[in-house]
């Protein structure tokens, strides 16, 4: 098994030109490689006894979360702190939106206070794009409605690549609520950039329209990633190298999209029996937080193919890499030769 650690230092290819990270749709394979390569160095930092380097000393990172989040927010906080940045986390309730404090005002105010990077999660698709068009600060999209979650996708890519080395030709199957999944959308872009084959699977009520290439005009073929859409889970899992179960929220039942969670589990739960169709060395992933017994069977989630916890640790490393690159450090020596604060 090859790992990214064996690759040369990322400084050899300076491709980074992003001021914001809004989605992976505008990332080339090289740019993704650059992030993943740097994340590998960041993993080494994290594995030190005292995981702290001064790379971003004097930089201010603001986590602006309009939606609840435990793991993504903690992950960004840690990433910033390990790199020595000043990190502020704000839970902006959407009630302040109702009070007339606009997103644009908030973002501009934070910039005026010196924010270099604003990590933003918001329930509205496109909110990060709106923010990015009104501030000089770098915006990192930590989830905008059902649209995108690029840092989750990058950590997924990093985790897969750590196991496979090269994702070209690997079959990645995402199962569940594709319609409402920002993770699935960003993963589709990242995976297709990396040359993987993407299959999405879910009940028709949870599959968005227009995902099949034949459902859009020829001139717009490249406007969405090329994916195979499969309503039948048995067929979808055939030969899968990676199986990703997506979180199913109980609101979908109230919304009339599903008869019951029980019925969903009966037809779409990722179980050991169904995984028998997958590649013998398949990996099992989940963006979390997971509902064991609904979209994924408990024994599978904790079984030998599961790399769910590894995803979490890798998330910090990937986010460190992004913050580092956004701070304009891409051209400098990667953190391995940096002086650590012992």
């Amino acid at each position: 098994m090859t790992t990214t650690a064996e690759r040369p230092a990322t400084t050899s290819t300076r491709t980074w030109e992003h001021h914001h990270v809004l989605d992976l749709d505008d990332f080339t394979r090289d740019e993704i490689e650059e992030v993943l390569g740097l994340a590998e160095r960041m993993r080494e930092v994290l594995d030190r006894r005292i995981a702290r380097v001064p790379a971003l000393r004097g930089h201010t990172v603001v986590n602006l979360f309009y939606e609840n989040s435990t793991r993504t927010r903690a992950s960004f906080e840690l990433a910033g702190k390990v790199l020595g940045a000043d990190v502020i986390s704000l839970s902006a309730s959407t009630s302040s939106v109702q009070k007339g404090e606009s997103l644009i005002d908030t973002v501009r105010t934070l910039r005026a206070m010196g924010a270099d990077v604003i990590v933003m999660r918001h329930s509205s698709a496109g909110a990060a794009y709106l923010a990015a068009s009104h501030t000089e600060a770098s915006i990192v999209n930590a989830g905008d409605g059902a649209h995108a979650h690029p840092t989750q996708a990058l950590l997924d890519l990093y985790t897969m690549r750590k196991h496979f080395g090269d994702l070209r030709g690997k079959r990645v199957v995402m199962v569940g609520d594709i319609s409402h999944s920002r993770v699935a959308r960003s993963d589709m872009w990242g995976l297709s950039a990396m040359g993987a084959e993407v299959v999405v699977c879910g009940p028709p009520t949870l599959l968005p329209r227009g995902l099949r290439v034949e459902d859009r005009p020829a001139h717009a073929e490249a406007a969405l990633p090329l994916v195979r859409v499969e309503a039948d889970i048995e067929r979808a899992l055939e030969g899968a190298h990676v199986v990703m179960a997506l979180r199913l929220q109980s609101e979908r039942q109230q919304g009339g999209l599903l008869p019951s969670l029980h019925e969903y589990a009966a037809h779409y739960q990722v179980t050991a029996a169904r995984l028998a169709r997958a590649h013998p060395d398949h990996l099992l992933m989940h963006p979390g937080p997971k509902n064991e017994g609904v979209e994924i069977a408990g024994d599978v989630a904790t079984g030998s193919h599961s790399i769910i916890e590894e995803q979490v640790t890798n998330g910090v490393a990937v986010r460190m890499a992004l913050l580092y690159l956004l701070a304009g450090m891409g051209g400098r020596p990667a953190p391995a030769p940096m002086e650590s604060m012992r």
Partner: protein
Amino acid sequence: MTTLAIHNARVIDPALGRDGIADVVIVDGRVARVGPNEGDAVIEADRIDATGLVVAPGFVDLHVHLREPGFEYKETIASGTAAAARGGFTTVCAMPNTMPALDSRPAVESVLREADISARVRVLPVGCITRGREGKELAPAGELVRSGVVALSDDGDAVADPSLMRHALEYSTVFGLPIAQHCEDPQLVRDGHMHEGWVATRLGLRGRPASAEETLVARDIALAELAGAHLHIQHVSTAGSVALIRAARARGAHVTAEVTPHHLTLTHEEVAFGGGDYRQIAYNANAKVNPPLREQADVEACIAALRDGVIDAVATDHAPHALSDKDIEFNLAAAGISGLETAFGLLMSLVHAGHLDLATLVERLTAGPARAWGLERRAGLDGIGTLAPGALGDLVVLDPNAEWTVDPREFASTGRNTPLAGRQLKGRVVATVYGGRVVHALEGVAI
């Protein structure tokens, strides 16, 4: 006696079958004579030399939002009708989703009073179908008719309750008033912010499916036939709706319809890919409108229906909004396009592309809408939409080939919300005459 003579224009008056070089003479606010060299005999007059230009009856818009009373920060009767004049519209029908809604005599009269004071062109108010536009009980149609409304509509929302809609249609037959419906099923479009399709999927937005419009069009046609009433379908946007309307009219049902310039020319791609680059997305709230911009096949069906006369009229659905309504999160942004001042230029793209001839376009902007709502039968509106002798002295001077760039900062409308900013259009309103008075003229037009 005040006289206005317009010389040497190509006069297009579809209702009278006229299309040729002529002069138009307006005396005391009414059309006096139309014919070759008729202006030469006029001794004392204001004159417009319209050589190389087109003169048509003033445009009639069955669907505008003037926002007054209640939302004067978006638009006023003064600014909205100034925009109408710039767009060539001499008659606009004002939708009743104001605050208060136009569901009572005092509310309608307040609009008419304000229009008397500040309107640049004619304002015909539309009353609510239901009290407060709440879709629960009928608004007093008789009282509204006596106050001067020309149609009833809960526009912005559909009357969702089928039983209430049936009764509204039945009741309207007493007054011979059109019931104008915004056809989108509220349950099917809930939380939807653009057309349901691949672009919405690309943006992670919930969609408003075409079927949400088509199910209500089908339902309301059936109810109108049951009631023997006049149903007017507002802003038709899908090929399916067109097919339903076409079939209903073939059966002889009293169904009329309008379509907007944006639904005739733009698709849902405008929201995300206005620049034409499919790798670069945007969330362009200025392209957010209800019903939403649809797909190319829908656009083509709407054009064909307009050409065939299955759709009677082009109506702008001019929906001005303030920047603070639009420059926010896409799902929170208000829906609507400020359309009066770009309508003609945008519609001319259909003519230049060969989809429509100019005379047909003029008909759908003049006699078509007037006939659809029977406006010409109303007291004081005789000859509306035509340049017949004795008709209202409302006309427009057009340059079909003038190229210009849309700059919303130049709008007379307070609403600068247009997806066309920076777009090059070919076809421009040179001057607008309302009641014999020039209410709009481009700089440099000699009068």
